Each structure stands twice: as C-alpha cells, then as structure tokens.
C-alpha cells in the first residue's frame, strides 16, 4: 500500500468522436456543472456554445494594448523630434504637422504592443505556463493531443458527486471513465 495521500481531481471520460463530444458537452452543460472541460486534439467549432462558454474577452485587452502602442509611438517620435530636439532635415518642419511622417512608426508600435498583449494575456487567460497538471497522471489523457476526445469533471464542482457524476458521464456517452487522483 502506498502511504502518500491522494486527492481526487475528478472524473475523466472518453468520447468516441467530435460529434459525441459535442452531444456529451450539451448534457454536462444542462446538468449545471461549472468546473469541467472538454479536451480535444484540435479546436472544435461550436463547442463553446455546447459548453455554454462566453466569447473570449481577449480582444478588449488587445485593444488597450494596441492603443498604448499607438500613443507610445506618437509620444516617442513627437517628444524627441518636436519638443526636446527639433531637427529640420530635408526641409521638413518640426511641428504638429510633422505627425504624418510618424505614422509608420506609430503603426508598427501599435502592432508590436498589440502582439505582445495577445501573447501575455492569452497565457494569463488560459493559466499557462504551468509545469504539471493532475490530468497528466491519467493513463489515457495523453491521447487528448493525438486522437482522443475527453470530458473531465472536477471534484471541486459544487454539483460533483462520485456516483451521480459518473452516471451522468455514462449517460452522455462517455466510456473508459476514470477517477483521476493527484498526489497531495
């Protein structure tokens, strides 16, 4: 007997195809579960609705990231070229009308800042990077990145119960239902 304490992470059930996963997800959603997720090797379109997920809020962050970039580009060029050290090159003046010559730099910095916002806010929203996850202890979960379709229901969901959730997963079409445990 192993002496280490284990904590139940939740149930993991396999579904045979994307269609089966979709139908299963609708049942889970309608059962009122909150802490659960569908796992698939590729993004399945329409699954957000079947799971009752809202549209990603990422674009709002990116809008502000891009705006910051635009302002940074303008300030960088304007302050250095017009305010601090006005340089008159090729007879081009240094005043507010010079701004049109700064458009390329403002544009590039908008894209640059927005791109970094996409990267870092995405990682924040999906909770990565992390080095381990209880699901990786499962004997079948490695197939989720190959050809397996899974639903995992976490034990910390308020509606979780060892018998009912298992029955629900079975009824939804899940097979190979496994109780995933994490080392404490």
């Amino acid at each position, binding site marked *: 007997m192993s002496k280490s304490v284990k904590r139940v992470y939740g149930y993991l059930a396999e579904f045979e195809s994307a269609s089966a996963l979709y139908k299963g997800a609708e049942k889970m959603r309608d059962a009122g579960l909150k802490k659960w997720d569908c*796992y698939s090797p590729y993004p399945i379109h329409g699954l957000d609705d079947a799971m009752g997920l809202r549209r990603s809020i990422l674009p709002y962050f990116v809008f502000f990231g891009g705006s910051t970039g635009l302002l940074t580009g303008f300030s960088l060029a304007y302050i250095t070229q017009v305010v601090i050290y006005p340089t008159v090159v090729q007879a081009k003046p240094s005043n507010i009308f010079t701004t049109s010559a700064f458009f390329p730099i403002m544009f590039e910095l908008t894209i640059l800042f927005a791109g970094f916002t996409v990267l870092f806010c995405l990682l924040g929203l999906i909770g990565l990077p992390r080095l381990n996850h209880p699901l990786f202890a499962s004997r079948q979960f490695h197939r989720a*990145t190959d*050809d397996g379709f899974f639903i995992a229901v976490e034990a910390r969901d308020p509606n979780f119960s060892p018998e009912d959730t298992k029955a629900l997963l079975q009824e939804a079409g899940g097979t190979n239902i496994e109780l995933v445990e994490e080392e404490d």
Partner: protein
Amino acid sequence: MADNENKAEQNDGSITLPVFEREKLILNGRSYAWITDRIAGIVEKPQPLLWWFLFIPSALIALIGVVGGLTYLVSTGVGVWGNTNRTMWGWPIVNFVFWIGIGHAGTLISAILFLTRQNWRTSINRAAEAMTIFAVMCAGIFPAFHVGRVWMAWFLAPIPNANAIWQNFKSPLLWDVFAVSTYFTISLIFWYLGMVPDLATIRDRAKPGIRKFFYGLFSLGWRGGNRQWSHYEMAYLLLAALSTPLVLSVHSIVSFDFATSTVPGWHTTIFPPYFVAGAIFGGFAMVMTIMIPARSIYKLHDVITMKHIENMCKIILATGTIVGYAYLMELFVAYYSGGKYEMEAFKLRITGPYWWAYVVMMFCNVVAPQAFWLKACRENLWIVMGICMLVNIGMWFERFVIIVTTLPRMWLPGDWKYYEASPVDVVTFVGTIGMFLTLFLLFLRFLPCINIAEVKWTLLESDAHFDDKQAHPDDGVESKAAYQYEIKKDRSMEC
C-alpha cells in the same frame, strides 16, 4: 460533352446543375492518429541519410560565408565589400530586400489566407512561417553590417546618442528598423503560439527523458481543453488580423527607402504595391522550393497534395503577372511623365551596361511563370521546381536592377563607375543561403513541420455535427472532386 452528362434536365425545361463535393485536403482517408504519427514521427525517428547530405554542406557554407565572411569584414573593414562611392548600397541592400521579400509569403499564408478562410493553408503554414523567420534573420545581417561599424548598430535603436541627439523619425530608414523588428517579433510570436499544441502532442508521445522535458517545457503545459482552445483561437485570429496589415506595411516601408528619395528610377508611387506583390511572388517560389523536396523526403503526399501545389502555382502566376504589369507601367509612366531624367534612367536600365540583369529579371519573373497557365505545367513537379528556381533568381535580380542600375550614374559623369561585387560580397550572400537552409533543416528535425492540430481540423469527421450530417446527407452531391483520383494516376511525376 461532360457538361451534358452533369446537367439533369427537368420536365419543365429548367436545368439542375450538379453540386460537387469539396476537394479533400487530406487524401486516402487518413485518420487523426495517422496524421499525428506521420508528422510527429519526422521529429522522433532518425533523419534519412539525405537530411545529412543536405545539412552538412549547408552548415559548412553558412559557417564559411556568414561567420567567415563577416569576421573578415569586421576585422579588415567594410571596404572589402564591392560598395563604392555612388553605388553605396550594392549587394548588401540587394540581399536585404531579397531576404525580407522571401519572408512575406509565410505571413501571407499564415495570416491572410487564414482570414479569408482558405483551409488549404493548414498543410503549409508552419513551414512557411518558419521560412519567414529564417529569411528575416538572414535579411537582418546585411543592414546591420552595412552601417559600416557593426558595433555602432545600436545607433539604429531609439536611444539618444552621447550628444543626446535622437534618431530622425522622419526617415524611411528608421521606419524600416521599426518595421523589420516588429515583423520579426510578431512572426515569432505567431509561429510559436501556433506550435504550442503540436509541441504538446510530441511531449505526450515521448518517453520520460530529455525529449519529454524540453517539449514539455516549450509546450507550456498545454492540455487541449476547450476553455484553452476558445481563447487560443481568438488569439490566433487577432494575430492574423494584426499580421495582415503588418506584412503589407513592411515591404511598403522597405520600398519607401527608395520611393521617398528623389533619385530618378526610384521616385515612383507604384513602388509599395509593386514591392509587396513581388515579395509574395518570390516568397511563394521559395516556399515551393523547400516544401516540394521536404514533401518527397518525408512522404507527406497525403497532407501536402497536388491541390496545395497547384494553388501555390496559381498565386505565383497571379503575383508574377502583377509584377510584370508593374515593370511595364514603370516604363510607361517614365515615358508619359515626360521627365527627361526618368526616361534616361530607364533607358540606362534596359540598354546600359546592366542590360543582361534586366533581361534575366524579365525572363525569370514575367515570362517563365506564364507556363503556369497550363495545368500540365502545374502538375509536373520538375517544371514547378524549375520555374520556382527561376523566380528565386529573378527576384534577386529585380532588386539588383532597382539598386545597381540606378546608382552608378548620377549627377556628375566624373563619378560614373561600373559596380562590381567583391568576392566577399558573394561569399557572404551564399553564406546566408547556407544559413537559411541550415536553419530550415534544423526546423524539420526538431519541430513539427506541419500544423498537426489544424490539419486534423480539415478532416470531415472533425466537424461537431458530422454524425448528423451523415444521418441526413444533402441531395445531389457528387463525389467528383478532382485530386483524390489524380494523385493516384501517376506516382512517377513526384520528384
């Protein structure tokens, strides 16, 4: 007539046209597991002998050309290049514009074809994006060393120098610094984020050990949950939407380096669209140059099908024709403007001492791709490879023609001089070709060269409603899509 067979005439005289099934992007009914195994297998299995035959010479050329050539340059002085007064730009800037242009096809495939929902891009986008990154790395070498004292290259960054004087933000050369560095950064983010799920696939297949550790580290703990996919897809869409104007801006800004000057032959408004079309044209030729051999070496015929190759041929034909139009329009505008110096510049270009470069450019970029009007040429991989090689050469010559035929004769006849590249120029340029191939071969060896997750998504059974559609099929759809049959017809045409 085939038409008559397909048209079913109704009793009331109306005609119902048949609805054809969409061409499949993955042939021979391959499964998810087959796709994973075939693509991840490239990274997991030992490389074929041919890989080593390509890798060792490429790495040697890169070492001699880039490391050796640049060490010699820095230790001796920038005078070892052939650049002389009047032709200050010469080969280094030709090479810079050439390599930057190559990169554009990668972004076009990954971003613009994504926004326009061209699903065939999934089989080629990863390799094309890798090509973008490596091409921009090769490009970056030239302007950095062209500044003369490379240890002063930090002057390009927006930091004031010792006298608190800032860079000139009104200069296209500084715009270029911002454009190229943003382009590289965003392309890298796009490429890496796109690869995270596939790195997780390789991680999950690996036995515990060094491979599992590194792929685990770089896949960031990806699990493929829909709560992750949902945000991930939005991120991908946003990056595509950001990259699309970015890629158009980068070569436009590169063209501003020329177009905003007052040099006859450069001072034209056609430059930005002409440069962008040329960049996509040259880039697609390079995608084909590296993908067709890779497809053959790793037996990827079911993933990169003849449909993919034909689509790329058509893009080369379209952009090549735009480029041809730009060449002619440039001449026409020079004539129509009545500008004496403009006309002289183009006369020099065509009939001057560099006439041979103009002929090479015209033949390779305008005449050769016209062969792609013929289906037979688009389907014969030897011809496709040959034309793509010509386009690669032609696009290098285009930049040579623009830069070198314009600069050596200006203002004072006293400083007219025939520009010749020095051996160090040649060695360094060939070195960057070696560097590009070395990096690409390492990419094939260590990273998933095809987007595993997205390719699975193009299979019919990947649809969440596939079962319902099977149960209630549409009426009158005929299984007549072209390529699933043609690929089996003649295996010998694959090189």
